[in-house]
């Protein structure tokens, strides 16, 4: 005898209880604290802040803990939280020229004002599993030196002094806000950059990689990559001037790309730009390549049907919270639609059988 499928509510409660238990894992192993995640899983925290579009290392660490290390799930938690927050003010644009730099490298000049600063990078580590870490011994401390004083000029500005690279015209129009207005296409460059900086790192990486392999090639050099902290300033109406309300760590990447120009207009390099919360250099580099590839129209290049050149394709599929939701929703019940398809298929088959029998 058929017993109707009931008890959805109890099933959900039980699933949640089991999930909580699984999240904690073996209770004989000490529990991870949020500060531990914040300090020791910092690159994961950075990614969650970047794709969650919310700069708060503690909340990002909490989200990672709650999501059992599933970073897209953690991004989702942060987004769902952020959407409930009031918008109190808009900051001034951050000035990356005055960044307190931890890392600053240029691939285009051997040396330059401010120097090359390697900073905390995996770049030249040998990828050998370090079993000392498994033993959890105390680590040696890095040496310290004097902080780099003052501003560090952008490589792009140095190139621009001779007109070798296109001008980046300042635009003081208030930028569109992807989180407050529906995406409208064609999108302006600020809107595209917003979408890419919160887009999925894997997706942006693959798109950038595809341009390097010939799908919309832009011949990028990393003019400069810098990571550090910048001040965030906000106008306080009561005071009538801007006040620094805090600082955020960002990664900025500026690429120098193949030129535009004509017989009458001297050839110039072109720019690609990436700016991402935290130390997220893979993302920042990838972002600058995708930004550059999307600029084909404005620079008078051909559309070669490369995915990275296709604004609608890139912008509509970059968001991993949207993508994972829609992808995973196909596991929800679809009995009704499936039943409709079943009936249709049975009808089509019956018709074909009847025709076949009639012919025989």
């Amino acid at each position, binding site marked *: *005898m*058929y*017993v*109707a*499928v*009931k*008890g*959805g*509510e109890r*099933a*959900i409660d039980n699933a949640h209880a089991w999930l909580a238990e699984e999240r904690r894992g073996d209770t004989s192993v000490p529990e991870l604290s949020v500060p531990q995640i914040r300090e020791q899983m910092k690159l994961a925290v950075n990614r969650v802040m970047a794709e969650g579009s919310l700069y708060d290392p503690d909340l990002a660490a909490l989200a990672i803990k709650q999501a059992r290390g599933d970073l897209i799930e953690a991004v*989702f938690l942060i*987004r*769902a939280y*952020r*959407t*409930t927050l*009031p918008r109190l003010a808009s900051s001034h644009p951050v000035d990356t020229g005055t960044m307190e730099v931890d890392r600053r490298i240029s691939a285009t000049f051997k040396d330059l004002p401010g120097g090359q600063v390697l900073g905390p990078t995996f770049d030249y580590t040998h990828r050998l599993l370090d079993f000392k870490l498994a033993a959890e011994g105390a680590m040696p401390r890095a040496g310290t030196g004097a902080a780099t004083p003052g501003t560090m000029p952008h490589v792009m500005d140095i190139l621009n002094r001779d007109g070798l690279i296109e001008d980046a015209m300042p635009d003081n129009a208030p930028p569109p806000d992807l*989180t*407050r*207005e*529906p*995406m*409208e*296409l*064609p999108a302006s460059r600020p809107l595209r950059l917003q979408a890419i900086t919160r887009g999925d790192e894997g997706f942006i990486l693959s798109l950038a990689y595809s341009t390097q392999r010939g799908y919309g090639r832009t011949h990028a050099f990393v003019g400069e990559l810098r990571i550090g902290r910048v001040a965030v300033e906000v106008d306080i109406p009561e005071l009538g001037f801007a006040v620094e309300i805090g600082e955020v760590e960002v990664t900025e990447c500026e690429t120098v790309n193949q030129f535009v120009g004509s017989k009458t207009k001297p050839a110039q390099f072109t720019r690609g730009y990436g700016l991402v919360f935290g130390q997220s250099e893979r993302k920042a580099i990838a972002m600058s390549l995708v930004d550059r590839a999307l600029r084909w129209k404005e620079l008078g290049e051909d559309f070669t049907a490369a995915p990275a050149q296709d604004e*609608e394709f890139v912008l*509509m599929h970059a968001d991993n*919270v*949207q993508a*994972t*939701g*829609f*992808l*995973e*929703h*196909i596991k*929800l*019940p*679809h*009995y*009704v*639609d499936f*039943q*409709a*398809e*079943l*009936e*249709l298929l049975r*009808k*089509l088959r019956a*018709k074909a059988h009847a025709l076949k029998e009639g012919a025989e």
Partner: protein
Amino acid sequence: MKDDSTAEAYNFAYLDEQTKRMIRRAILKGLAVPGYQVPFASREMPMPYGWGTGGVQVTAACLVPEDRLKVIDQGADDTTNAVSIRKFFSRTAGVATTERTQDATLIQTRHRIPETPLHVGQILVYQVPIPEPLRFLEPRETETRKMHELEEYGLMHVKLYEDIARHGQIATSYDYPVMVEGRYVMDPSPIPKFDNPKLSGSPAIQLFGAGREQRIYALPPFTKVVSLDFDDHPFQPSKAAHDCDLCGAARSYLDEVITDDQGGRMFVCSDTDFCAGRREMGHKGRLWAPETEGAA
């Protein structure tokens, strides 16, 4: 309000008033231009995209404390996602809930229109995955918006015609496109085409929310909605050729349930409230045995 502390931290029905206002504007515009897809600044909700975030936002914008909410998924009140969404609103809005179609003031649905006819004053909110009926014929939003502007729907008719040429009939069984008031081709959301006739001339307000795709559209009461077809291949709503095995209903949409691995199956109403109501009135289906109720 519930004794749940998380409920206190959020506004009535979760969204802040500014956001609700923005959504209400989109709804009003949608009602003014039936079938037209209004872009709106969809918010991230605490459930994933694809779980009904569009419907949830429309419901949140429409709810008032006096409302009585019903939530169904696949026609049923007790499917897990329906339970989850109903719980969300009873927690964040503290509104009364019901499973009875005629008692509800607002019904949020996924994939079905209730069998019981709706009445004046009710709002039916649909969850919509892909609001664009032309999407699978033309993937670009920039193109499809133009096609709607110019009423360029030839592509859709070609698709339906190709179905007939290939299969002898239109091979779309759900998500079946409709024409609204002779102007906009509209996606009715993935309801079975069996439900399409209920879209037309309904006394209730019908609202469609697509969260991920950031679109809202609407049918005001008594809007004329016509399922696309050809004179020589008229539209046919269809369902399994059986009666409900629990309540005996002959004209309700049925789910097929596999009962063993020997080919045994039964057919039951997908609309659980409709089915239970009929059984209460004494209707019996082929396999109904009331004594098993306790075991359920």
